[in-house]
């Protein structure tokens, strides 16, 4: 049974919350300043190709505060943020929070499914390669990982798209909804049909690092004294791997998987772009290319929280779930 020292956990979480607040304020300020330094003129970006007179431009500039100093603007952005508003998206014409909630839930299915698939298969492949170290199975798995670690995510997506959608015709080329249909009339199967290829791409890319990590850990375990002793007792090979290997490497592997949220988010942006999957990644690219500054800043903050959450869970698992570490502090 997992017994958690609630007082210590509360202190730990409190400290983490303070850290997150400081981090978010710093990132909000820095990213805001970065955007302000860019040559993009917000008034021009908002108006697009429309022609307006010089006076109207000045009025808009004053309304939006482009004539204020940088310091005043940063403080203004932070205080609005503190009141819970992230502003108004220029592309989607709705509050930024609404866009993010909607797009993020669409992406979450993609991210969660590929995270779980890559976690399970990455771990199994790593155990297999580590247990069979030096054999052809190990070499095949290692070569696969080497190649995948050096290949750009979006190119893997393009190749899969060419093979499965264009050549074999099994999956549609893009979009999460068939053309000419409203998003709420889509059946579950249609939706799943369009999710498979992006999720698959993201999974096979994410597998590589976890597999290599698990493999190295298992090889270390195999060199240990207790492993040798278990062999001397005459236990079966896979029995030892199960009882001594997997038990020792499962927690570090799960921790690593939680710490991969950073790459997961980056991969999602690329995969969504390739498969035209309308989620947070497409919104990010659109916001960046069409200078939708409020939305872009909102996404930066949300992704920071996302990555932070992954690292926090990894920390908690590391400190509280591992029986050896827990035992030392509880007494």
């Amino acid at each position, binding site marked *: 049974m997992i017994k958690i020292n609630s007082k210590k956990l509360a202190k730990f979480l409190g400290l983490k919350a303070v850290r997150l607040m400081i*981090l978010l304020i*710093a*990132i909000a300020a*820095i*990213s805001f300043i*970065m*955007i302000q*330094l*860019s*040559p*993009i003129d917000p008034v021009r970006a908002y108006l697009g190709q429309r022609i307006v007179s010089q006076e109207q431009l000045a009025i808009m500039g004053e309304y939006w505060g482009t004539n204020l100093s940088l310091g005043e603007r940063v403080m203004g952005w932070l205080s609005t943020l503190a009141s819970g508003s992230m502003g108004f998206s220029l592309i989607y014409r709705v509050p930024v929070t609404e866009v993010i909630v909607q797009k993020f839930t669409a992406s979450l299915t993609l991210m969660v499914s590929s995270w779980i698939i890559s976690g399970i298969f990455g771990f199994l492949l790593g155990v297999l390669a580590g247990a069979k170290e*030096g054999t052809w199975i190990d*070499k095949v798995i*290692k*070569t696969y990982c*080497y*190649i995948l*670690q*050096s*290949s*750009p*995510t*979006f*190119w893997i997506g*393009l*190749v899969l*798209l*060419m093979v499965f959608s*264009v*050549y074999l015709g099994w999956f549609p*080329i893009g979009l999460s909804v068939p053309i000419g249909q409203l998003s709420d009339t889509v059946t579950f199967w249609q939706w799943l049909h369009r999710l498979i290829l992006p999720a698959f791409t993201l999974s096979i890319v994410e597998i590589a690092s976890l597999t290599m990590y698990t493999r190295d850990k298992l090889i270390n375990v195999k060199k240990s004294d207790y492993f040798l002793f278990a062999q001397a007792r005459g236990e079966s090979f896979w029995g030892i791997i199960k009882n001594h290997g997997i038990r020792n490497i499962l927690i570090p592997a799960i921790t690593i998987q939680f710490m991969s949220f*950073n*790459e997961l*988010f*980056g991969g999602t*942006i*690329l995969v969504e*772009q*390739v498969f035209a999957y309308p989620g947070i990644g497409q919104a*990010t*690219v659109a916001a*960046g*290319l069409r200078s939708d500054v409020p939305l*872009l800043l909102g*996404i*930066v903050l949300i*992704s*920071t929280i996302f*990555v*932070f959450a992954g*690292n926090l869970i990894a920390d908690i698992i590391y400190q509280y779930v591992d029986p050896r570490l827990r035992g030392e502090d509880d007494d």
Partner: protein
Amino acid sequence: MTEAPWYNKGLFSSLNLRQKTLLTIGLTGLVLFVIFICGWMIDANLPTDFTMKMQAPSFLHPFGTDWMGRDMFTRTIKGLSLSIVIGIGASIISSIIATILAFVASVNKWFDEFVSWLIDLFASIPHILLIMMISIALGKGAFGVIMAVAFSHWVNLTRVLRAEVLQINTSEYVALSNRLGRSKLWIAKEHILPLVLSQIFVGTLLVFPHAIMHEASVTFLGFGLSPHEPAIGIILSESMSYLAMGAWWLAFFPGLALLIVVLLFDIIGDNLKRLLDPGEANN
């Protein structure tokens, strides 16, 4: 003792690891150099020939031709050499940043805390998003991309160097040097820098593959190099429009070539790391 990787086996099994490592470094370096020189000599304005457009790969055009009849092989080589230049620029700048920060961290406790905080800060924004932001802030184009990639890849090397510098700082000869009245700057220059130089060198090479891949990724998304530049990212994002027509060679070969270049740099970096690690070098 770890086992030599697959690329160090086979043909040259009579050589020892050091010789084999040097040989692989030499060969892969040569390949990359040839790609770079070829790309540099190719004129950016390739001849267009509309009678030859959208040709599948053949002996005349090993990678096929694009929608304007340009030879894809030439375009790919040109793109790769541009990637190599950007990779070199970005990795050198990022290791300079890492070195400076590692030394700043060694000044006192507060500076150390600050650098650690900075590392946390940069590690908590997804890489691609950070590169996009910096690229937008500096204006798109080669300069923006080099800076963006450099400013997002110093984190790992800084972590390594910081630990290394901290360790050297506790050694007796540094304490002795301090007592003899040498300034901190002198100690950093004469005692610490020579010892971490090999780390910096390997670190620079290891950043390289990531730099190239991230450059291609942001360019693919439309934030990196401008569309008229012959980058791999541009070629691949262009190819998206022709995929449905079955023009698979437009995306397949340029991406594969990029993969090979990244893999070659990985091999050089990996082998150099083995060579400079005294525990492994003489196996």
